[in-house]
């Protein structure tokens, strides 16, 4: 077996050194009647070539986004990631290292985390960020729990533009923990009166911008009302590239910003692993979930970095911890940080402008398709269209024509007739003019 360095001779010698006669003697604590004598009913070892063939065949049964005109977003976005990013994250020293518990021999990872935290804080307009969460959705649920700790209230208000999956994750955890959640109805037209839902019992208001339906939300008004009521504003961003074009939530009064960082540095990968960004104000730092990296000096006075404020965390505080999170998304955070370093402010701003232009172009093209209405007055790189009839069927027919043309809202919001004719459509820098034209043509054909 190519991965196992011990030979039978080694095993014999080692058993002798231990003083037992067979390896099964080492498993003697397992109740005899439960021990497996032979192999479980699963295939035997395969060569690398065979494994590669098996998995390649499975992969070939999927339609890769890059092989077709592709407009699927709704919380995960196809962007071009420079080849150098993937090269760097595969460096042995990054890929095969552990959580930096021994800082003297983990400065590479630690400095990256410190830089990542700073990038995230600046991007979101906040004062401090942690070393990553699993993804945007779990980060949002953690933010709600954090708001409960900060405000000592247990009622969250979720805006109707929050990604339905995110809403469900918050609802699931809150229900189990006995907290209250007020989720406003789905808001495909950005018409809801969010302010009316905020009162003195509310711990936090959770607002996504751009919303699930693509609308840009003016956070300033929400922040004002929330703060007046003693509640926190949690801003959620699922398309982090938008922050290259749209004002930072921190500048508009957000108290916690949670974002899905996948768009920068990380492939789609069917939904994971992704990387949750989590930023807040200095004054809340001890209520934050997740790991934090901080600057210090070593015995020689040289600058260095360590994991810090771990008294918030489960391995120290156990049942009093701010979260149960342990492993986070280190390597995805590295990919994010490298890609963001390559972009810099100039590149990110251009990338955002290009995304916005592609979406504007697409919106114009789709709006011209007979029967199609674009619902959005504002958007970044994603918007919602209304089509005649069942949106899911339309998307399926588009797929048959080789166009992956967005997400039918009914897939995430089933059983809601008023949403059944809506499609959320995204256009990033990876779409070409030809792609967008092909989408409009195919949609016209499907609707004809």
């Amino acid at each position, binding site marked *: 077996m190519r991965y196992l*360095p011990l030979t039978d001779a080694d095993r014999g010698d080692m058993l002798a050194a231990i003083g037992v006669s067979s390896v099964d003697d080492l498993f003697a604590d397992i109740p005899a009647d*439960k021990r497996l004598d032979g192999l479980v009913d*699963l295939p035997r070892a395969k060569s690398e070539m065979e494994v590669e063939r098996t998995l390649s065949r499975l992969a070939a049964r999927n339609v890769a986004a890059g092989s077709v005109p592709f407009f699927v977003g709704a919380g995960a976005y196809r962007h071009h990631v420079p080849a150098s990013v993937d090269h760097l994250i595969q460096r042995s020293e990054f890929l095969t290292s552990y959580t930096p518990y021994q800082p003297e*021999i983990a400065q590479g990872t630690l400095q990256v985390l410190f830089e990542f935290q700073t990038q995230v804080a600046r991007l979101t307009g906040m004062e401090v960020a942690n070393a990553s969460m699993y993804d945007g959705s779990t980060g949002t649920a953690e933010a709600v729990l954090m708001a409960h700790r900060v405000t000592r209230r247990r009622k969250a208000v979720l805006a109707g533009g929050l990604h339905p999956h995110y809403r469900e994750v918050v609802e699931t955890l809150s229900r189990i923990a006995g907290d209250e959640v007020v989720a406003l109805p789905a808001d495909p037209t950005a018409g809801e009166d969010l302010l009316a839902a905020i009162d003195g019992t509310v711990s936090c208001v959770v607002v996504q911008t751009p919303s699930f339906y693509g609308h840009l939300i003016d956070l300033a008004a929400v922040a004002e009302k929330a703060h007046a009521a003693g509640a926190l504003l949690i801003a959620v961003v699922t398309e982090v590239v938008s922050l290259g*074009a749209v004002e930072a939530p921190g500048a508009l009064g957000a108290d916690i910003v949670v974002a899905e960082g996948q768009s920068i540095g990380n492939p789609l*990968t069917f939904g994971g692993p992704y990387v949750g960004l989590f930023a807040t104000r200095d004054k809340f730092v001890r209520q934050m979930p997740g790991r934090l990296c901080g600057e210090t000096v070593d015995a020689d006075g040289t600058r260095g970095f360590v994991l810090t404020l771990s008294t918030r965390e489960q391995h120290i505080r156990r*049942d009093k911890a701010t979260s149960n999170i342990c492993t986070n998304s280190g390597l995805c955070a590295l990919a994010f940080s490298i890609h963001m*370093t390559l*972009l810099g402010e100039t*590149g990110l701003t251009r990338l955002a402008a290009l995304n916005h232009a592609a979406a504007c172009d697409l919106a114009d093209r789709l709006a011209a398709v007979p029967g199609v209405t674009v619902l959005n007055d504002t958007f970044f790189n994603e918007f919602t269209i209304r089509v005649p009839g069942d949106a899911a069927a339309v998307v399926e027919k588009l797929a048959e024509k080789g166009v992956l043309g967005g997400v039918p809202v009914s897939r995430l919001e089933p059983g809601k007739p008023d949403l059944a004719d809506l499609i959320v459509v995204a256009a990033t820098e990876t779409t070409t003019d030809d792609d967008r034209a092909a989408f409009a043509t195919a949609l016209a054909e499907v609707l004809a």
Partner: protein
Amino acid sequence: IEEPLLFEVGRTDVTGVDLPEAPATSGSRLGGLGRKSAIGLPGLTEPETMRHYVRLSRQNHAIDLGTYPLGSCTMKHNPRLNERMARLPGFADIHPLQPASTVAGALDLMKQLAHWLVTMTGMEAVALSPKAGAHGELCGMVAIKAAIEARGETRSVVLVPESAHGTNPATAALIGYKVVPVPARPDGTVDPAEVKARLSPDVAAIMLTNPNTCGLFERDVVEIADAVHAAGAFFYGDGANFNAIVGKVKPGDLGIDAMHINLHKTFSTPHGGGGPGAGPVVLSKALAPFAPLPFIRVEDGEPVLVENEADAAGGEHPFGRLTAFHGQMGMYVRALSYMLSHGADGLRQASEDAVLSANYIRARLSDLFHAPFGGRPCMHEALFDDSSFEGTGITTLDFAKAMIDEGYHPMTMYFPLVVHGAMLIEPTESESRAHLDLFIGALRDLAMRAKAGEAEAFRAAPQLAPRRRLDETRAARSPKLVWKEPTPAEAAE
């Protein structure tokens, strides 16, 4: 070898990414919400970026560089085949919400992974979506809570042995349970009598790690499971140490109701400096109906993705959703690649080799290091305590830092908490005999130097690392968590 911070060398007007021209459009749709202020994100060109990160990487220890015997963390070889497979466009470049008809291979892969996991563990079902071990614990415990609620009961207590990972009590507390600790008996395992003494109609579950964090198999696990079940409670198994027993025993046969599996430990998806992980949770028949959304249902041999409660069949009572989308696909591919490569035979052999190697270290060090629970065989990790250095003035921390100068990553220190100055060594199955012997030799040499009174040298370690000991107190007292432009006074320093 101090690499400047990105913020000290980058400039906001520099970029390492060229972009095509934007299409001509009819004006902005940002509705006045466009950015008004600068972000403050410095950029680097590609050659500068390469150097920055390559240089930083070289300040890390890694499995590929040397032994990384972190007990309870399971740093084993990461096959590069798995990385290659995860990057196939058919896996890496598919969207979680593109039509199910266009991801038949992905769903099939999830089905196959699920089959491996439930077969190896002898369980009924698996919830794939949890993002890491602690998330898996959450999944399992919520399922337990849901199952109890479904019977119309309310229970408020979870039993957790004192030696447990911190995630166990943290998870239980997160969803509103009161945590009641269970002490270990002198041999390092849980006493069924202590469990029984704490069982009551208010106990929802016990969370038990097996093999436990002392590296021992809980030999009374069946008795404990029976007692727990008899009390109407559930048995949550922390699967962090499943790598010791794959193919040797099925957790389902031991009475476990839910157990997360750290794909990044047992099935070797890379740790990547702290993640991502993946923590699928296998579930017993009693808990299977409560598995969260989404899940794969197999109909006529074909996988069907169930994403919404509306699509749940009779008998399926998903407790909700734990994360957006379907979980850690990238990790599923790597883990399945690992499983297919090893096969049932190789997985069993890997567990045997891991246990063999740990016992070899234990046996070869037993004259110089003190084992808190005596000389009995361990499972995949060997545990010692700091009475090994009694009277030398050398602490476990000192010893660990001295290992760095020998070219090794230290073992896990001060965990489990129930052992004073614990040193938990997990070699895994990936070390060759030659590497094991070198490692043992280095530890023996250090121990002899410790006993010879070289306390000063130990306290000054490490000397050969990129940094000497870091001042963690200072970091925590006035946290500097983001870089700030130095003030003129600081800059003048």
